[in-house]
């Protein structure tokens, strides 16, 4: 009997959402005897999902987007040998979208079976943890600090400094908390990681635990991600059974117990202190800082709280050394960011690249322009609390400082494209409305300001002689929210609002462009 041919059909939610399970069933039914079906993560080329890959002597060959009805034709065309077909995309790794990326954190994404410990190990898995186990706390933190890694959740705070603060804190119990409350529209890299490469996150959190002396960890995952929760729970069980976490990490004597907790649909719980409140079993209300979570975090104890991608970046930094990672990027933005192309875009997907490329390269070079075929009007970068970036800024290099300089936000790397049918006044109103819906209510500028913001925008778009005063009022209101809010929810809602007003005044019914005004430039601690 000849060896079975390996065929890959992703299990990522975004593949399931366009019929990957049905394609897998059709393949299994038609060619079950000849194939070994692997449910891998997604390569992140979402316009090609469901993307079926076949292992051939020339490498893995991709076909997509495949529907169950395509399966008989594909098999007849020699799918299992990598045969020619209209849906054939060539050798996967040579697809330009993928070949042009610099995948470090996502190097296993779509390549492996997410839950296979053997696959993980065979693709550099646990190498970072093994190296960390041979180092002391200061050594691990030095590597992380020297790598230049900054918090990938949006605030871009140097991860090494946070870890060092927790390491130096004296306490009987310390915690590692992963902020996996990825609530921003246009972002999905956390979800992909949890569903497509969960062990890298577990490894990263375990490295953090060793670095700071923590024995307990929590993954706080939003309730909108049930597949991610299920995958993580299974991965944790397998990692524990194999001794990578638990009472003695790889037999080292260091204990690290990791638990998954589910959020409950509150956007503001992406803010780190609200998340900690939620984990403790309360309403997700933002805490005043100081004290910093690094000193008084979960249950009042020193806590490292980082985003999924921050933790997931630690293993490669430890495995290959800080300098390797640091050499990617520009200025003070070291390493790579998994940019997420979303919204009205032809080739939506995940693009991991070193900092320093431009929005134009991303949305045209990779993204291929809009899905609708119409001109791009505005691009929101950095999530719902990020600015709408007009065309004259599309050639600014994507790095934290260059974006901050013009009032933009790189944030978590989410990029939402809107075509010329978008109305930016409506989107600005939506930003205020969303803030009103999701505000935790603790501070007045956010709680009340957002509701007043909706009203003022309505009065502006209604036109009439009051318009100039109302525009002034909106700017004053945004100024108050920006400087007076306790966290990024109220503090950054002015970013999309003011950028819409400044760059698209015609959408607000302003006949004369409003006088040039400063953008929102305050740096607020984002989640």
């Amino acid at each position, binding site marked *: 009997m000849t060896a079975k041919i390996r065929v890959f059909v992703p299990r990522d939610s*975004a593949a399931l*959402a366009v019929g990957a399970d049905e394609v897998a069933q059709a393949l299994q039914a038609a060619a079950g005897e000849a194939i070994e079906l692997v449910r891998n993560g997604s390569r992140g080329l979402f*316009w090609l999902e469901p993307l079926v890959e076949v292992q051939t002597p020339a490498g893995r060959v991709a076909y997509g987007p495949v529907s169950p009805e395509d399966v008989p034709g594909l098999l007849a065309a020699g799918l299992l040998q990598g045969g020619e077909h209209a849906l054939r995309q060539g050798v996967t790794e040579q697809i330009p979208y993928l070949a042009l990326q610099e995948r470090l954190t996502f190097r296993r994404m779509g390549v492996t079976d997410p839950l296979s410990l053997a696959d993980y190990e065979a693709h550099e898995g646990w190498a970072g943890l093994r190296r960390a186990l041979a180092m002391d706390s200061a050594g691990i933190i030095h590597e992380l600090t020297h790598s230049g890694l900054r918090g990938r959740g949006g605030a871009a705070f140097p991860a090494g400094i946070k870890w060092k603060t927790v390491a130096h804190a004296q306490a009987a119990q310390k915690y590692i908390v992963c902020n996996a409350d990825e609530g921003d*529209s246009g972002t*999905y890299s956390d979800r992909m990681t949890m569903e497509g490469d969960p062990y890298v996150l577990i490894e990263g959190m375990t490295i953090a635990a060793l670095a700071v002396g923590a024995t307990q960890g929590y993954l706080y995952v939003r309730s909108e991600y049930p597949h991610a929760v299920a995958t993580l729970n299974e991965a944790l069980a397998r990692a524990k059974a194999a001794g990578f976490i638990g009472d003695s990490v790889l037999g080292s004597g260091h204990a690290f117990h990791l638990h998954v907790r589910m959020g409950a649909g*509150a956007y503001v719980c992406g803010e780190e202190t609200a998340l900690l409140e939620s984990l403790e079993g309360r309403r997700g209300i933002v805490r005043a800082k100081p004290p910093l979570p690094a000193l008084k975090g979960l249950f009042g104890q020193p806590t490292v709280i980082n985003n999924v991608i921050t933790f997931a970046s630690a293993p490669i930094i430890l495995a290959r050394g800080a300098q390797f990672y640091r050499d990617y990027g520009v200025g003070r933005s070291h390493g790579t960011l998994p940019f997420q192309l979303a*919204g009205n875009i032809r080739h*939506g997907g995940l693009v991991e690249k070193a900092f320093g490329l431009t929005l134009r390269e991303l949305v045209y070079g990779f993204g291929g322009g809009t899905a609708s075929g119409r001109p791009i009007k505005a691009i929101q970068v950095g999530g719902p609390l990020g600015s709408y970036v007009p065309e004259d800024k599309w050639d600014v290099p994507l790095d934290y400082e260059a974006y901050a300089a013009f009032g933009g936000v790189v944030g978590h790397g989410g990029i*939402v494209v809107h075509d010329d049918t978008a109305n930016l006044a409506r989107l600005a109103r939506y930003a205020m409305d969303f803030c009103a819906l999701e505000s935790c209510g603790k501070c007045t500028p956010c709680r009340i300001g957002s509701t007043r913001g909706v009203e003022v925008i309505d009065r502006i778009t209604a036109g009439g002689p009051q318009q100039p005063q109302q525009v002034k009022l909106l700017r004053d209101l945004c100024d108050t929210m920006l400087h007076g809010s306790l966290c990024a929810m109220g503090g950054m809602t002015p970013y999309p609002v003011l950028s819409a007003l400044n760059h698209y005044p015609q959408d607000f019914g302003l006949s004369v462009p409003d006088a040039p005004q400063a953008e929102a430039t305050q740096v607020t601690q984002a989640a």
Partner: protein
Amino acid sequence: MSTPHASDSAATADAVAPKAALQIVQQAVDELAHLPGALLPILHAVQDRLGYVPEAGVPLVAEALNLSRAEVHGVISYYHHFRSSPPGRHVVQVCRAESCQSRGAEALWAHACSRLGCADSDHGATNADASVTLLPVYCLGLCASSPAIAVDDRVHARVSLPRFDQLVAPLQTQEA
């Protein structure tokens, strides 16, 4: 906390008698009250099993966690995910966030309201025959394939209006 949120359980919600519902709450309390920060895990367990968190169960949870009833009620009402009354037999979530808006989510939402016979509310609504509860959701993480919806525990992306009709058609039949 091992069961992911499965709206399928909602299908049996209105069939559970009040007394049996309280037993389910007590069971969740017994299983989970020992956890640090146990309130959310307990509420999730109850809602996964019953489809909602009955108000009559609040004192049981409060007692076990040494909280006031007001504190427990406050948590249930704070989080969008938790509900205090049974939903329809099926739950349809339509994403209304920016990425999906750029691909017609507002039209899809309006269509969903009229197609399912649900009131257009920011807090969601159940239709007259209680076959479907329609909820807005702010991001399902499928933003490269907008617009996205979820029907019970299954997600769907690139959802056109005809595709939406196709997906919800089975929900309103008698057997649904």
